[in-house]
């Protein structure tokens, strides 16, 4: 049953009650979440990645179905079985990755699927342009109807997406991380537009984790953490610190036994790295840090603050606009990946299925992919199969990969075991620097524990480790020192993770606090900067 207040201003236009979503593989994205929207408000849905906010809104838009729970729209209980149903009830979604066709014009994208006809078979281009202009003016969202989508800036692309939803009758707009791709200027414009829409009676859900923006523009906010709702608050009644505490925090604090690190010489030296992406957004801003032998340097931060771009630079998936990065004095920027490996760098990639493994190949074939040309595995033109079998068996045993045999297809293994195959390879070829990007994401507890223990072990044996992780437990417990990235810059450097609290982490991760340049510079362990 819906609650009262389903008519008149301020009434509940959407009510989601006790929503639970459990996927087929057992992962729970939402647990008993209550969420409601008042008519004409801008409501923030906050949480770190994996908190469940995207999933919740996907269910509101009909892209997914709840395992249990009820959804009421305008007082009516609904089963949102597909986006069409949601759209029919006035719900529209502006996706993070735009659903636009680049070579088509703005107007053509607007009317796709509901094209106005002229004499039965032709597109009434004039009408489409007129419609676009009409909506554009009505909502004060300036777009160029005849420009091709691939030629317009990101901010305008987003406006087109918004207009698309509005044109299809949306009175409730779900915006998924709308400012992730916008520059500061474009963000300001967006906020003006949203306030305008609110004035016209539209309701907006604003999925984000950017505290400043949320404080600026929203009326209420719901905080999610690990699939549960931490409560709904009036924005003006709550401080950033309180939000931070609710958003960023560990329910269970894992405590890892590890010896204190004795860092040695610098292995990886990064200086003044800068990167502007294809949409003209600055993703890396004057990044400088050192990683030394025998220490684990963690990079903490909410995803999307430049961590992915940084790792891409370090393994030549992309090149920066400025700056340097060197391993033992040799530059690795733009170096062919084979050469980077020859320098002793190993990477545990974030996308393990795309880069980490060839899922159709055997475990053995996967685990030697970086060393197939080495002398010890080759006897003249052919492989030394005995040596390769021995290596594979050794690695499978040492990394406790649960499998039927070394010739089993890697894609058949569980996620945790697949990751073990990846790390078995990356850790075992005597690297001097390990880049670990989200190394335990989405895998079982046993594999997670094992991989973390291994990382510490390797670090203590003298290897330099750069750990990028959105998992707070992981990055706080594994790292000896850590830096926090926010908005493409280093917001903080903590030489010793002992004594760090979730609160402090939250404040830096969400941009509430920022260390001074001198404090951050301390992560560079040499005289010159």
């Amino acid at each position, binding site marked *: 049953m819906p609650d009262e207040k389903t008519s008149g201003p301020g009434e509940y236009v959407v009510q989601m009650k006790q929503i639970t979503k459990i996927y087929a593989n057992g992962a729970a994205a939402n647990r008993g979440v209550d969420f409601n929207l008042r008519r004409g408000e801008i409501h923030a849905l906050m949480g770190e990645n994996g908190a469940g906010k995207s999933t919740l809104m996907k269910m509101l838009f009909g892209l997914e179905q709840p395992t249990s729970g009820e959804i009421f729209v305008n007082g009516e209980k609904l089963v949102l079985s597909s986006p069409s149903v949601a759209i029919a009830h006035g719900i529209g979604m502006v996706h993070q990755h735009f*659903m636009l066709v*680049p070579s*088509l014009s703005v107007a053509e994208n607007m009317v796709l699927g509901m094209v106005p006809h002229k004499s039965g078979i032709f597109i009434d281009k004039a009408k489409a342009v007129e419609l676009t202009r009409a909506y554009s003016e009505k909502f004060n969202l300036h777009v160029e109807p005849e420009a091709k989508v691939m030629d317009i800036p990101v901010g305008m692309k987003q406006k087109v997406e918004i207009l698309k939803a509005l044109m*299809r009758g949306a009175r409730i707009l779900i915006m998924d991380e709308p400012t992730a791709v916008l520059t500061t200027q474009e963000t300001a414009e967006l906020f003006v537009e949203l306030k305008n829409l609110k004035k016209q009676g539209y309701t907006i859900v604003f999925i984000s984790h950017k505290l400043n923006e949320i404080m600026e523009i929203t009326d209420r906010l719901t905080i999610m953490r690990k699939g549960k709702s931490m409560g709904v608050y009036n924005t003006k009644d709550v401080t950033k610190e309180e939000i931070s505490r609710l958003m960023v925090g560990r329910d269970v604090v894992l405590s890892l036994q590890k010896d204190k690190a004795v860092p040695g010489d610098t292995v990886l030296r990064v200086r003044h790295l800068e990167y*502007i992406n294809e949409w*003209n957004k600055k993703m890396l801003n004057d990044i400088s840090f050192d990683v030394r032998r025998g220490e684990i340097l963690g990079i903490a931060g909410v995803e999307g603050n430049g961590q992915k771009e940084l790792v891409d630079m370090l393994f030549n998936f992309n090149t920066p*606009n400025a700056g340097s990065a060197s391993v033992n004095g040799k530059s690795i920027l733009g170096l062919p990946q084979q050469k980077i490996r020859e320098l002793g760098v190993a990477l545990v990639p974030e996308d393990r299925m795309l880069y980490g493994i060839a899922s159709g190949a055997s475990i053995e074939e996967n685990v030697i992919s970086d060393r197939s040309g080495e002398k010890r595995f080759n006897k003249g033109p052919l492989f030394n199969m005995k040596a390769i079998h021995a290596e594979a068996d050794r690695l499978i045993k040492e990394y406790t990969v649960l499998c039927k045999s070394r010739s089993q297809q890697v894609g058949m293994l569980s996620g945790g075991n697949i990751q073990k195959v990846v790390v078995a390879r990356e850790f075992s070829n005597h690297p001097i620097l390990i880049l670990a990007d989200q190394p335990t994401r989405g895998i079982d507890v046993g594999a997670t524990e094992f991989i973390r223990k291994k990382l510490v072990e390797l670090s203590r044996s003298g290897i330099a480790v750069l750990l990028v992780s959105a998992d707070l437990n992981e990055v706080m417990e594994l790292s000896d020192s850590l830096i926090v990235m926010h908005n493409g810059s280093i917001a903080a450097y903590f030489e010793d993770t002992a004594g760090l609290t979730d609160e402090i982490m939250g404040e830096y991760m969400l941009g509430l606090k920022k260390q001074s340049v001198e404090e951050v510079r301390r992560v560079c362990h040499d005289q010159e900067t």
Partner: protein
Amino acid sequence: MLNFLKMLATPEFFYSIIRISAPILFATLAAVVVEKAGFANIGLEGLMMFAALSGSLVSYYAGSWFWGFLAALATGVIMSLVMGFFAFKLKTDIILVGIAVNMMGSGGTLFLCKVITNLTEGKAMASTTGLITRSLCIPDITIPLLNQIPFLGRVLSGHNLLTYLAFLFCLLTSLMLYKTPLGLNIRAVGENPDAAASVGVSVMKIRYTAMAFSGLMSGFGGAFMSMAYAQGWSLDMVSGRGFIALAAQAMGGGECLGGMLSALVFGFAQALGIKFSAIGLDSNLASPIPYAVTILGLVIFALVRSSRIRKQHSAAALAKGKAKAES
């Protein structure tokens, strides 16, 4: 040499270029539309063979070219839909489906020809040229006023009905792609199927439609081969035009107009070859020209495209530098 060039400067030569380009053009349009929808149909060669055979046979049995013509079209459409089923439903790599159709299109058509003629004529024939008379072929059309213009008149008038249709379809296909909702959907599905699906466009339906269009065009092309270009069907009569069409599509930048120009280039090369043998030169010297021109064209196109991308990147880099200075 001069004599040879004089031979080229005749209206008959240009007439033959247009005539030869027409079937290639049909297949090119098929390739263009299918690529716009986001995939490739490399079975055009085989589709044209089957269409050519069915057109020829049915026109003989029905006693009129019209029914044969329709049969050719139907054959192309139906077979292309079966291809679509294997590619989209049974998830066979569409390249392999195309290869399979081509494989069957070669000997398979000869087999069918022999078997069917054996049934109806009492003896297995390896081609239908013995059965087809002029009246069973698609007629040529003389355009009254046009044919009186000196030089141009003999170039442009008197072509086969299908030749005119080929160039007309080039225009119509371009119109379809850029001026109709169907074309819009095709281009959307080809570039960003998620975007199309998100506004309710059925991606599967559009893919099948594009496939059927390519089958239809192959039907026209095949009909042209056996009922206009030649009188009757014979083995391997399509001789690679289906593959040349793939190249013409690529060389033409994936657009109808570009494809048409590319098809004309091949037509020119082939007409040249015929002229070569007319003056006693081995036709085998000129025959490879269209294929070599294809490779050359693909290379040029790739070079142009990569330099354009490089320019884009440097423009973007300039913009980045600007943004950085301002940020």
